[in-house]
């Protein structure tokens, strides 16, 4: 059985989670600590991928990422590559698709720390960045683990949006979920079973790890 789609999915999930940690950590911090009146609206926007059907995201991406589109056009001008039917396009789509799964656990973890440790750090002379990196991030450690595992697992399971923008190019955009779909369509149920069972077991182990981790101490952080 061809395992390239598994490799593509693992790469996609890793890159997506890395991008989301870089973009999502400051966003989650701002959502947890900020006092802006826009905070509630941004919270709602972050949660949108939880409730929207993936076809909505896929449809908008197909238009935004197109060579004449508002995102795909400039990208094509700068890189010479089109975003649809490319790995980079899948990363952009997955970052939006998995956004709440990374940002929400981080936000809740930051909120759970409360103001006191940071006030103490400030009294001891730490500047805000220093306090964030050396006090808040270690205290939010389990939030980070939850965010990474959930973001990774959710990206592995992504189907509808990728189906619409990926083009199923072998070795480029054919992910494991797309491969399963095509195996079912071509009646290759043996291969579909093997890949599906692999995804099922992996997802279960990932969730089990999170719940074990979160169950050992007080609940309320993460999910």
């Amino acid at each position: 059985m061809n395992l390239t789609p598994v490799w593509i999915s693992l790469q996609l999930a890793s890159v997506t989670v890395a991008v989301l940690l870089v973009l999502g950590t400051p966003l989650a911090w701002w959502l947890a600590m900020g006092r802006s009146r826009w905070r509630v609206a941004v919270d709602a926007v972050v949660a949108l991928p939880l409730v929207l059907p993936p076809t909505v995201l896929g449809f908008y991406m197909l238009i935004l990422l197109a060579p004449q589109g508002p995102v795909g056009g400039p990208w094509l001008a700068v890189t010479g590559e089109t975003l649809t039917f490319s790995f980079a396009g899948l990363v952009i789509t997955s970052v939006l698709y998995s956004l709440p799964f990374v940002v929400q656990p981080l936000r809740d973890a930051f909120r759970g720390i409360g103001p006191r440790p940071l006030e103490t750090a400030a009294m001891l002379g730490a500047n805000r960045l220093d306090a964030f990196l050396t006090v808040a991030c270690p205290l939010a450690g389990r939030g980070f683990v939850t965010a990474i595992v959930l973001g990774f697992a959710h990206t592995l399971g992504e189907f509808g949006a990728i189906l619409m923008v990926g083009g199923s190019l072998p070795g480029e955009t054919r992910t494991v979920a797309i491969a399963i779909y095509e195996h079912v369509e071509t009646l290759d149920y043996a291969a579909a079973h093997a890949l599906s069972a692999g995804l099922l077991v992996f997802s279960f182990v990932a969730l089990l790890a999170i719940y074990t981790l979160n169950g050992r101490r007080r609940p309320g952080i993460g999910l």
Partner: protein
Amino acid sequence: MSDQAASALGARRGSALRQWLLAGLLLVIVSPAAAAPLKVAVASNFLAPLEALAEVYRQQGGPALQISAGATGQLYAQITQGAPYDVFLAADQARPQRLVSEGTALTGSRMTYARGRLVLWARPGIELPADGLAGLQRPSVTRLAIANPALAPYGRAAREALQATGQWSALSDRVIQGQNVGQALQYLATGNVSHALVAASYTRLENRPAGDYQRVAGRLHAPIRQDAVILAGSASADQARAFLAFLRGPAAADVLAAFGYRAAGPSP
């Protein structure tokens, strides 16, 4: 019915609403359309023609059709798991054949109901090669969308046509495969490909994408035969047989031609 409705009208002058309700009820009870609808599972590429055919069939006094559209492979999987359809209109021959050999469809019910054609379509403002598929290596062809040849009959036909004209390997890094022929058209409509090889039936859509298209010669690929079967679990097999006979008839042939299909012809 009109006598009963009239007497109801005379007896209850005061309550117009109740009279209308009674007349409506009688209409529902005696009308032939109240017969159980025929449940038809159809490949998505044939949805629009089937809706037109359903209208013609109803006008001829046939039962209403309850239509479920999907990908042929997906519908096949649902049917093998007991989905309660009467008729399956597939986009290929393989899945109906398989259903018959598995005993899920009635032996002898399989027939070709339509033969598809391919067109080469270009985005608006992008040239359509005057020499047809032979001209596809021009730089104006940046991306060519086809349906996945492993999944979709139109994809297989597109690959055969590209192979027959010696384009397949030369274009391999420009060909984008949609999950089905509808997605190949979607890539063209959203501007993500410059050209697409899709079903001719899409040229008859009211909301078809802009751009020029030309027919691909039928001799470049094996015929795209779409087969129908009656499912073994159907409680309305006689009605299903009547509907398949209608699909072979002249009224259906007109609708098929209007949607860019060739009429059924003999099943091999």
